[in-house]
């Protein structure tokens, strides 16, 4: 009998399942396949391309395939981190969607045995002119706060972008990082048969049933109400589960741990066993339930939050369950690992599913979907940019500050407890966040989150490369050198060849930049089907990068402390292309010029220079040239006090639009005391980094003198008060009037 799948498995995949099993699957088996073969769990469209990423590096302790990636810091101390998307649920129910996104990524870190020390986010919404997007935005921010604040993990940074192209599909990506001693690192791979599978955490309910499959489809007007497929967060139970799991890891009571996240019990049990070539037998009757009369398939697919599956030797069951009880958590033995590599599900005595695990993982469909790629950047935009001349610099700058994309993100981060754990020495508002590890050597780690939606929409390959280079530049700004990266790849429908082409390009871009700079990709996540009624989002990869500082005391903040500091530009100065820049987005011209690329050697020199200069304490503040180019970065640099302004005098002639607005990576603004100028320029010379003094910080003024390419003298003055006022209110003005 060949009827349509109850779980919306495509007909051709249903045929594959029948061929593999040699029979029609039972209802429960079909449910298991629907989850494990979903794009979300199987990465069936993306996996072949992700092989381009390199996780090879002596620092890498654990790469892709585990709950989270881990790099070694020093003396056995390791850093676990990972980024994940929660786009689909957050559009349906923004508060719970965002909150469970944070909870889910935290549990991935905790499952490695690591104590989370920071979360960060990268958010994209439609325009705030639409009241609906104001609501989505507000509720997502509250949702992130609603989980991160109570569980006691600081939300230390993020990125925000508003763009009409995301009107029907918002992006909510969250990153978490944690610290772990190498001897306490947990694995998600079952080491042998005969281990008991212990369920700990909240009871299982009907929330989030089939969430993974839901997130593996586009939205359409016929979707109906999908809210029951969104999970509900319980940060209090989450905190208890965190403490319980970390205690289990510290006391080395477990052999393997995995979060019951997407596809719940199904994915955690099959993946833990499957990684070791073993099997798993589960009895759904043993699962602690919140509601009675749940069907076996509902129990298997439920994505109820705050649950972990622990594999342990029978002798450790009692201490583990004692720990769970002490932290007010439910627990029970729900199964055990077996030699036969099958996933066997019982409902009491009755076997309701028996599937070879390889069918769910190795034999899952793997698609090399057709793709079409566009020619790469320089050829695609053969015309020189035409911005200059039509607008004054002042007009352009004001336009930038009027959009919430150019505004102060303070409205967002004041919702987040970014200081709990008292590690946050540089928090939101700086280029990268810096966290004190509180060890004897005064170590500190830095974290940067980057997304460049517009650059990636202009040229996904260059955009991907640029994202990596920007993250490195931001780490350099605080005095850190890069350790490793994680990514979250948000794309539209992979069955559309043009979308698949942009996906491949972006992956190639990120991978090539990672290899050129020797930065391993240790974990990641792919979110496809960000489409509604056939319209997909632009390619939007996001990068999270971690870095290490020589010492917490050597960190460099991103705000000038007062007037009288010298200012300089360091880093490679050209070519200062404008394609994909914020200015390009504001003006929306047809031919903005190429998206800039970077030079790996020059970028590495910059990292070396900044690290060395920070050790000598020569730099008072520094800021990466980011969104809006030098001029907007300068305004952020002076954001410490309303009176902080600038006097800039450039002797060499410049093309003003490019000079002030290009976002080419690998350039930093520095502020330092006058007596540091000679040592710094010497150091720059030694490390081969261009160093160019441009002026100094001044009180109550904004004055820039330069000569254009025709050698005409120009002066650009602004009302400092007016600029700062625009910057401060352009985002918050949309939010504060809401009831």
């Amino acid at each position, binding site marked *: 009998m060949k009827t349509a799948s109850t779980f919306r498995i495509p007909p051709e995949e249903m045929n594959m399942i029948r061929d593999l099993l040699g029979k029609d699957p039972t209802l429960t088996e079909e449910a298991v396949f629907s989850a494990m073969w979903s794009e979300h769990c199987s990465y069936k469209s993306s996996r072949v391309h992700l092989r381009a990423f390199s996780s090879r590096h002596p620092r890498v302790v654990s790469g892709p395939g585990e709950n989270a990636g881990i790099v070694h810091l020093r003396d056995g101390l390791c850093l676990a981190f990972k980024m994940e998307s929660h786009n689909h649920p957050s559009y349906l129910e923004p508060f719970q969607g965002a909150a469970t996104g944070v909870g889910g990524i935290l549990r991935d870190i905790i499952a490695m045995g690591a104590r989370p020390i920071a979360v960060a986010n990268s958010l994209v919404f439609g325009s705030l002119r639409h009241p609906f997007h104001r609501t989505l935005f507000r509720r997502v921010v*509250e949702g992130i706060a609603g989980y991160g604040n109570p569980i*006691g993990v600081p939300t230390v940074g993020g990125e925000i972008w508003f763009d009409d192209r995301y009107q029907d599909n918002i992006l909510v990506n969250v990153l978490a990082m944690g610290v772990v001693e190498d001897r306490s690192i947990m694995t998600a791979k079952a080491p042998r048969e005969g281990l008991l599978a212990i369920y700990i955490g909240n009871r299982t309910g009907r929330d989030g049933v089939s969430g993974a499959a839901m997130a593996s489809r586009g939205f359409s007007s016929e979707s109906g109400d999908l809210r029951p497929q969104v999970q509900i967060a319980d940060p*209090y139970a989450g905190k208890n589960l965190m403490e319980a799991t970390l205690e289990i890891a510290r006391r080395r009571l477990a052999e393997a741990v995995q979060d019951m996240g997407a596809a719940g019990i199904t994915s955690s049990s099959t993946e833990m066993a499957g990684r070791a070539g073993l099997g798993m037998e589960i009895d759904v009757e043993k699962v602690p339930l919140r509601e009675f009369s749940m069907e076996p398939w509902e129990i298997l697919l439920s994505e109820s939050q705050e649950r972990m599956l622990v594999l342990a030797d029978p002798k450790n069951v009692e201490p583990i369950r004692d720990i769970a009880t002490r932290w007010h958590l439910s627990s029970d033995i729900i199964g055990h690992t077996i030699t036969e590599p099958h996933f066997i599900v019982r409902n009491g005595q009755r076997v309701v599913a028996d599937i070879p695990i390889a069918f769910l993982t190795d034999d899952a469909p793997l698609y090399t979907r057709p793709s079409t790629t566009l020619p790469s950047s320089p050829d695609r935009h053969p015309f020189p940019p035409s911005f200059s001349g039509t607008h004054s610099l002042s007009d352009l700058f004001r336009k930038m500050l009027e959009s919430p994309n150019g505004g102060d993100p303070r409205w967002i981060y*004041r919702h987040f*407890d*970014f200081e*709990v754990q*008292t590690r946050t020495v540089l928090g939101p508002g700086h280029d990268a966040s810096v966290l*004190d590890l509180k060890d004897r050597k005064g170590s500190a780690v830095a974290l940067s989150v980057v997304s460049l939606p517009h650059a990636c929409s202009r040229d996904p390959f260059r955009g991907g490369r640029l994202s990596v280079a920007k993250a490195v530049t931001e780490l350099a700004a605080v005095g850190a050198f890069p350790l490793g990266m994680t990514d979250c790849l948000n794309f539209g429908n992979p069955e559309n060849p043009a979308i698949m082409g942009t996906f491949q390009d972006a992956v190639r871009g990120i991978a090539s930049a990672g290899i050129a700079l020797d930065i391993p990709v240790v974990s990641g996540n792919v979110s496809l089907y960000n489409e509604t009624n056939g319209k997909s989002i632009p390619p939007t990869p996001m990068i999270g990068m971690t870095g290490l500082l020589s010492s917490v005391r050597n960190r460099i903040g991103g705000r000038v402390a007062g007037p009288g500091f010298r200012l300089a530009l360091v880093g490679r100065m050209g070519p200062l292309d404008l394609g994909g820049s914020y200015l390009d987005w504001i003006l929306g011209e047809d031919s903005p010029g190429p998206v800039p690329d970077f030079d790996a050697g020059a970028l590495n020199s910059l990292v070396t220079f900044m690290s060395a200069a920070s050790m000598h304490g020569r730099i008072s503040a520094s800021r990466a040239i980011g969104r809006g180019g030098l001029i907007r970065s300068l305004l952020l640099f002076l954001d410490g006090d309303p009176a902080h302004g600038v006097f800039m005098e450039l002797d060499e002639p410049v093309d003003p639009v490019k000079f002030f607005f290009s976002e080419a990576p690998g350039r930093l603004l520095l502020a330092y005391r006058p007596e540091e100028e000679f040592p710094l320029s010497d150091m720059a010379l030694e490390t081969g980094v261009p160093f160019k003094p441009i002026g100094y910080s001044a009180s109550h003024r904004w004055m820039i003198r330069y000569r254009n390419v025709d050698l005409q003298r120009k002066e650009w003055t602004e009302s400092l008060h007016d600029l700062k006022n625009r910057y401060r209110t352009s985002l918050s003005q949309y939010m504060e009037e809401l009831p």
Partner: protein
Amino acid sequence: MTTQSPPSLPISARFLVGVLRFPGTNCDFDTFEAIRNVPGLEPVWIGHIETDLAGMDALILPGGFSYGDYLRTGAVAAQAPVIDAVRSFARDGKPVLGICNGFQILVEARILPGVLLVNTSRSFICEEAPLVVQNNCTPFTSLLSEGNRLSLPIAHQEGRYYLPDKDLKELERRGQVVFRYLQNPNGSANAIAGISNPEGNVVGLMPHPERRSRSTAPGTGGFLIFESLLFSLLHPSAIPSGPAGQSLSPA
């Protein structure tokens, strides 16, 4: 002999400071560390079902969340078994400090007067809050003087201090306001950031001193609060007597 002996502290001084933990408390480690960083003070964990506080010289209720605060903040913790012991500890005149959620618990338990409502912005606020010290007659402000400014961060959604007008006047008249915001961030009555009981030994404040007690922190104003505690325990007689007047007992 060229070595100088540290003059200020008797070597034997070691005061036990109980740090309370309710399920879900998340500023517990931060507070514990801040206490440990003050030589002379020794932090001790106190669980939520503890009923015996013998041996403790002072108590601190740290901030964060308790029992998830799904109900009114602090309301569940105020019913915990340990609270009766805290109440009699306070009645004995020993120093008790409630920080943020700890302050909320103290008002819910009626150990301090007033209530803490949702901020006027109705949102969580995490930012630096410049404060003015209004009263140095408490064990936690003894090294400060009236009018001193210090900057501590706030991080709360329910921090709007409220008392009916008549009681508020009484509170002010008796000098029970310990800290006031320079710029009122949350709509608190009279910009109140922290108060004491009439006797002055119990203090509650919304800002987080433990977050400004590390040399790597953006400021170090928090040290003063914990150093004051040590000073007060060493020199009980040096603290000016608590706010005068009749007691304003919690309703």
